[in-house]
């Protein structure tokens, strides 16, 4: 089942500047797709377009199911006025979640990410990694059909990364699709089903690792394939 269908002719921050062009891809149920590209390639613009945060969009974005997605941003966002627990409760309320096990799951995730001691603290006093954990916990709790994850590994400690990856695996088994933008190619190579390589606002390669290798360097790692594309672009 198709969860996300992106069919973009172009999109940008103003009508005379097309930041991304000809972006077409789909995400299937339970699929984890890596969005990869150098700095300024247009990854964040693609994400913003999917989230409906860009004014100039020529194309279609379709999210299947109950249209419930969760976005984990690269830079955590939170209210100065609410504690960690209050953020979780607010997410429950605005998403109209009636799950009887919600609080139990919330407690489990807080414990898993070792945030029990700051459960009633303001996230403004947290480290970047702890704030990122809050973003992850809240996203998981609302049980979306689609995750849009932007650089999830930055600031997370190794245990949190491992826990996050195992949760991502569980969510895929549940049927959620995940679009993950990352620069951590070693990890992406191990966990992603497919890759979307973006450069200068265009999709330059897409497919499984073998498909990417077929058009770049056979038997190479994702990092080497990525390097190959970047070097070829320069020429």
């Amino acid at each position: 089942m198709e969860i996300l269908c992106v069919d973009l002719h172009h999109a940008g921050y103003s009508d005379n500047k097309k930041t991304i062009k000809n972006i077409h891809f789909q995400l299937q149920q339970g699929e984890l797709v890596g969005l990869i590209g150098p700095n300024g390639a247009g990854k964040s613009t693609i994400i913003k377009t999917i989230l409906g945060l860009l004014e100039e969009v020529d194309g279609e974005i379709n999210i299947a199911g109950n249209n419930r997605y969760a976005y984990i941003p690269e830079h955590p966002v939170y209210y100065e006025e609410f504690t960690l627990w209050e953020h979780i409760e607010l997410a429950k309320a605005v998403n109209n979640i009636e799950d009887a096990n919600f609080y139990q799951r919330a407690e489990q995730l807080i414990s898993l990410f070792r945030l029990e001691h700051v459960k009633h603290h303001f996230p403004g006093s947290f480290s970047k990694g702890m704030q990122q954990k809050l973003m992850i916990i809240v996203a998981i709790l609302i049980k979306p059909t689609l995750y849009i994850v932007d650089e999830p590994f930055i600031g997370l400690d190794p245990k949190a990364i491992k826990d996050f990856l195992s949760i991502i695996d569980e969510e895929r088994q549940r049927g959620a699709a995940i679009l993950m933008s990352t620069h951590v190619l070693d990890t992406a190579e191990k966990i992603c089903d497919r890759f979307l390589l973006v450069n200068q606002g265009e999709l330059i390669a897409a497919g499984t690792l073998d498909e990417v290798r077929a058009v770049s360097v056979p038997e190479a790692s994702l990092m080497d394939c990525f390097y190959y594309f970047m070097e070829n672009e320069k020429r």
Partner: protein
Amino acid sequence: MTPKQLFQQRLKREWNYHYEVWKSAVDWIIALYFIVPFVIFICYQYYSIWTDQAPWIEAFPLQYTRYIFFYICLIGSVRLFIKEGDLLFLRQEKQWVQALMRHGMIYSMIFSIGLILILAAALYPLWRTYDDTSLSTVFTFTVFTSLFRINIQFIRQLFSIWFKRWRLYFINMASLITFFVVFQLFLISPYFVQWFLIIINGVAARFLFNVRLNLTWSFQADCLREGQRQLVLATSFIKASGYRVEKNFRANKEPFILFSESAQVFKNRTNSNIITETFIKFVIRNKSKLLTLFQLVVCFVVGIVVAPFWIKWIVLLLSTFSIIHFIRGSWDEMKNHLYFKLYPNPGHEETSYAVKKATFILTLPICFLFGFFTGWSAFFPFVWAGFLVAVIATTLMYFYVKKELMV
């Protein structure tokens, strides 16, 4: 480049930045129709004071003008002119950082003296013409307040570095009272005691200057403070235009008084109750919002009390509407926050009900107060009239919020 040149460059850049902010906020239309006439009016009044042609001055409480100086002493901050980028390049060179800080502190002291001198020069004609104040008295007062302002700024900055959270809050309260007592002591003291206080202030300023200069471990907090001071003008303009400026300087770890440990307002944890509760917390945990509410309430209560009988009812109506819509506006602020946009929120019936409920709860005590003062002042001295009008006003407010308020 020398530290002095670097300081001068940063100072010049900062003033240029302030000038640009002014230019963008005050265009020629505002300048022509508001600022220029206002300046002409002030100059004319000032000239009238000098030439003893300002009859309104008789009603002016001259004894209070000295407290303007006390207020001026409390605002502002010692500047250091350091930047976060210095952590990479200058932090290893202790002499450079300290030289920058020294120049910044000397600049702050000169700025304080200049500010006090300008204010004293502006008020001198009033004191001289209408209060028979001698030049030597004004001179003594100016010297004292200049040194006093410098010391207050050093002390407040050091306290903000050494203490945190509730300790800082109580220490700031205690120091404010102490500063006021010292200021008052100066005003009522004989001439030689005044000079004794000036000497003490002078010695203290020298001592505090050295303490602040050698306190370099608070580099990051200092950079944050510097950044805030540089943006103070732009921030005030942005705030005046109604935009909420995020404050994030030394965030509290947890709620200090209101609902610590994420305490619940409602036992029944329905989604609607949670939205009501978080909205209430959003308003009452926001200091600037509370301060604005407090100022509005004070202004409206004064307006209600002093207004003639029939006008009171109109003011009651206007003030209640203003408060309801001020609180209602906070909901827009809350839902326009980026956190709210992380997930698609189609909005449901319960949300509207929850926001109305929170608006009613938050407006209730204020509306009661407005109603009470309206009834009490209209039918003075009958207190029961106050309670009666308060009950009627809150009941009408309830129906308005429930039926008419758009969420």
